[in-house]
Structures are given as structure tokens and as C-alpha cells.
């Protein structure tokens, strides 16, 4: 006996559960919704929170979205036919709580239920970011969010290089980079944004060339200037997250104090010889840099990398961790490093996590209504980091 398409659909509908749009809508947050249509259909609109999993790949990737065979999964297509067949298949795969949306997305829209307009991923972007969108924690919506995000990198050096490269590759739509230095031969042992042909060129220009070549989706905004008390607030205001890869204490404290003014999260990384530290400063939610180190060390006790050396690969590890923390903040996923300091010892090959706490006596963030006065960059060392408050 041969069966027509309609026979197959009717048979499937008798073997599976269908759910009405109006009954599903109040429970969207509790259910895994899979849109099994093709990408071009999805582009014209979809139910909020649905994951695009075209019918052709459903069986092979459903496990990424529904890890538990007992979890509730609702499939939908345009009218509820393809999704009925797909639900039947998932039942055969052992999914015990699967349903098909009765009438599909068309009926959903006809009933006036909420849906979101097309995602802005182009076909090229869908190909480029496919390994991201496959991750349920990212998905199409997350990728769109990354493309709409704005991240500022303080420093285009050892830490800024890997961080910028990975953030650009990830499709963070706008990357600001501030650095007033030019590329020097001694940078190339670790600063992988730059190359031999760029020696003498401003680092931000070299960074722009590298990042744009890697991903033309990314708009690179360059600031070929020194971060100072005069410009820091205007620049920071344009961004969602600040990645601190500076190479000196005055900049670190300026970044911290300005982030408190604007309540911008700072992904902090620092390196010295074979050791690195990474953490996230989430203003007034977790500790700030001054909670941890209220004052910078005197210059004679704070040799720079130029004086003491740094293993090039180390900056790759620490800068990459800064990139992953930044992506997590932008997507609001995972457990961030706010309140935790990750230390890395390259010689011992050890990571350790230390608890860092908000200091109720912190000179900078203890009084939320009075953020610290911005200390002029060039003279911070002379002030030994003493903090005055904005009245």
C-alpha cells in the first residue's frame, strides 16, 4: 500500500499530540520551541525564543536543544503538517513529551499572538556564524545581539590583540580600540594584530586592517590617542563593555573609576612575566579594581613588561579569556568572573580561582551616589592613587 503526503500527515497527527497556539503562548518560557521550517521562512518572522532547526537536520541536532528525552518540546512549521511528521519522528527517537503546533505559524499569526520580525542575519552571516547559532545558548537571536553589540578595547597590545581578534571573529558588531602607540618590532612577539609590514604605523590603524580583513561585518572605531580624564567618559559612553588590556597602573585606575561613573562592566586582564590575572568588574554589583587594590604600587615596585618581560603566549591565553567573558556578558549566559579572580601561572601550568569581594570601605565604589573623581592620567602615580569623590 502506498501513502500520499496527506495520508502520512493524517496518520502522524493521530499518533502525536497537537497544541493550540493560544494554549502554548502563555507557556513559551517553559517549553523548548523548535522552528523546523527552512531558514528563508524563518527570516520572515518567527515565534520569540524559537530555535531554527530546519527539518532536514532535525534528527541530527535535536539533542543539542533537547538534552532530556522527557523535556517538553513543541515543533512548528507553517501550517502544522511538516511539524506533525517531525513530532512523530522525535517520538520514535524517544522524546516522550513532544507536540506539534496546531495550524503552525500561520494560525499563530492569525490569532494575533506575538512574533518577532525577521532576524537580520544574511545568508553569508548565517554561514559564517553557523557554529555559533548551533549553540542553543547563542542561536540566531544571540548572534544578532552580538552583531548589535559595542565593545571598547583599551589597548591594542598583548591582551587587546587576541581579545579583538576573537571578538571580531565572533561578530561583535562594533569594536572601539584606543591606543596612542605605533607598532614596534618588539611588539610582534605577542601582539598578533600587527605584523612586520605595519612597523611604525599607528596600532589602531594596524588593528583596523587586521580585524576588517578577518570579518567585514565588524565596524572598527579607532582612537589614536591616550586615554585621559578628559576623554574617557565620552568614549566609554559609546560602548556596552570595556575590555581592559592596558599596560600601566594609571590607565587601570582611570578605566575603573570611569566605569563606575557610567556603570559599564570592565573585563580586566593583566600579565607579568609568566603569570596573568583575569576578572570582571561589574560596577556596584561586585568589587571594583580599587576594592582589590586600593592603591597602585609605587613606580619602583611596579616594573613594566618592557622592563621585566612577558612570555608572548601568556597574553594570548589571558586575552582570550577576556574575550570569552565579554561574549558571555553580551549574551547574558554562563557564570561570569565578577567576584572571582582567575589566576594563571604558565610555568606551573595552573589556573586558580580566588574570591574577590566588594570592600565596604572602598575609596571608589563604597558610596554609590558619589563616584570617584577622575584622576588625571599623567599624574596618578604622583598622587599614589588617592581618591577624591565627585560632590
Amino acid at each position, binding site marked *: 500500500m502506498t501513502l500520499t503526503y496527506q495520508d502520512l500527515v493524517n496518520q502522524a497527527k493521530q499518533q502525536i499530540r497537537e497544541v493550540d497556539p493560544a494554549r502554548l503562548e502563555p507557556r513559551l518560557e517553559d517549553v523548548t520551541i523548535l522552528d523546523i521550517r527552512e531558514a528563508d521562512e524563518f527570516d520572515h518572522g518567527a515565534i520569540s525564543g524559537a530555535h531554527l532547526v530546519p527539518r532536514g537536520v532535525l534528527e541530527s541536532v535535536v539533542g543539542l536543544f533537547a538534552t532530556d528525552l522527557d523535556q517538553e518540546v513543541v515543533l512548528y512549521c507553517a501550517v502544522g503538517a511538516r511539524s506533525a511528521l517531525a513530532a512523530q519522528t522525535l517520538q520514535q527517537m524517544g522524546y516522550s513529551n513532544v507536540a506539534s503546533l496546531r495550524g503552525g505559524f500561520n494560525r499563530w499569526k492569525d490569532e494575533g499572538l506575538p512574533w518577532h520580525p525577521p532576524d537580520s542575519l544574511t545568508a553569508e552571516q548565517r554561514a559564517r556564524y553557523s557554529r555559533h547559532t548551533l549553540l542553543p545558548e547563542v542561536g540566531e537571536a544571540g548572534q544578532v545581539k552580538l552583531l548589535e553589540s559595542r565593545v571598547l578595547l583599551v*589597548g591594542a*597590545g*598583548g*591582551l*587587546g590583540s587576541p581579545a579583538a581578534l576573537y571578538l571580531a571573529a565572533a561578530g561583535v558588531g562594533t569594536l572601539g580600540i584606543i591606543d596612542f602607540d605605533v607598532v614596534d618590532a618588539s611588539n610582534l612577539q605577542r601582539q598578533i594584530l600587527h605584523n612586520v609590514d605595519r612597523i611604525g604605523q599607528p596600532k589602531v590603524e594596524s588593528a583596523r586592517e587586521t580585524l576588517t580583513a578577518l570579518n567585514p561585518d565588524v565596524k572598527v572605531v579607532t582612537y589614536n590617542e591616550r586615554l585621559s580624564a578628559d576623554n574617557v567618559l565620552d568614549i566609554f559612553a559609546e560602548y556596552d563593555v570595556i575590555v*581592559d*588590556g*592596558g*599596560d*600601566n*597602573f594609571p*590607565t*587601570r585606575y582611570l578605566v575603573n573609576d570611569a566605569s563606575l561613573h557610567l556603570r559599564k562592566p570592565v573585563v580586566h*586582564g*593583566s*600579565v*607579568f*612575566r*609568566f*603569570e596573568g*590575572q583575569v576578572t570582571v568588574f561589574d560596577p556596584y554589583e561586585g568589587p571594583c579594581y580599587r576594592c*582589590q*587594590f*586600593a*592603591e*597602585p*604600587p609605587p613606580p619602583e*615596585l*611596579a*616594573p*613594566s*613588561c618592557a622592563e*621585566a618581560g*612577558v612570555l608572548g603566549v601568556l*597574553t594570548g591565553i589571558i586575552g582570550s579569556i577576556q574575550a570569552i567573558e565579554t561574549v558571555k556578558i553580551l549574551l547574558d549566559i554562563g557564570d561570569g568572573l565578577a567576584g572571582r*579572580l582567575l*589566576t594563571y*601561572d604558565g*610555568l*606551573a601550568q595552573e589556573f*586558580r*580561582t*580566588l*574570591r*574577590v*569581594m566588594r*570592600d565596604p570601605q572602598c575609596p571608589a565604589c563604597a558610596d554609590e551616589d558619589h563616584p570617584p573623581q577622575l584622576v588625571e592620567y599623567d599624574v596618578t602615580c604622583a598622587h599614589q592613587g588617592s581618591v577624591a569623590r565627585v560632590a
Partner: protein
Amino acid sequence: MTATVRIPTSLRTLTDGSSEVEVPTGQVGTAIEDLTTRYPELGERLLGEDGKPRRFVNIFVAEDDIRFLDGLDTALTEGQVLTILPAVAGG
């Protein structure tokens, strides 16, 4: 009865290159006194002239900053690790 002090690379020139130093258990303060006897310059880096930990070096017992425990009176027990964490700014 000893605990272990981890010496960061930036301070190893002060401990003749040692990355770990054993100290007697008891309190953090007495452990630092012991360190200072053996490595006077290291002691100066950890404590100011007022005898308090400097504000650009943090001292952790296990995972916790002693400033949020009992400071130099924080207990240091057998096998615990005391971590010296200096501020570093390189990028």
C-alpha cells in the same frame, strides 16, 4: 606543621627563585614574620611601615582575601596555601 606560601614570579627574585616556601602554621601574621626573617625584602613588600598589609598586594588563605577574614590574625592551618597576589598592570 607547615603551610605553603605561593610566591608570584614577580617576587621570586626575593626568595632566591623559590616558587613555594613552607611556613609554620598558626596565624598569617606569624607566617609573614617567619618569611620576613628569612627573606627581609619580601617582608617589606608585604607589609608597610605600619605593619599592615600593603594596599597593592593581596594575601589569600585558600581562596579568601585575609582582609575579609581576620587580617593578619587569620588562622593558617596545616596544609593550607597562602597566596600572595601583587597588583600587576602589564598588557
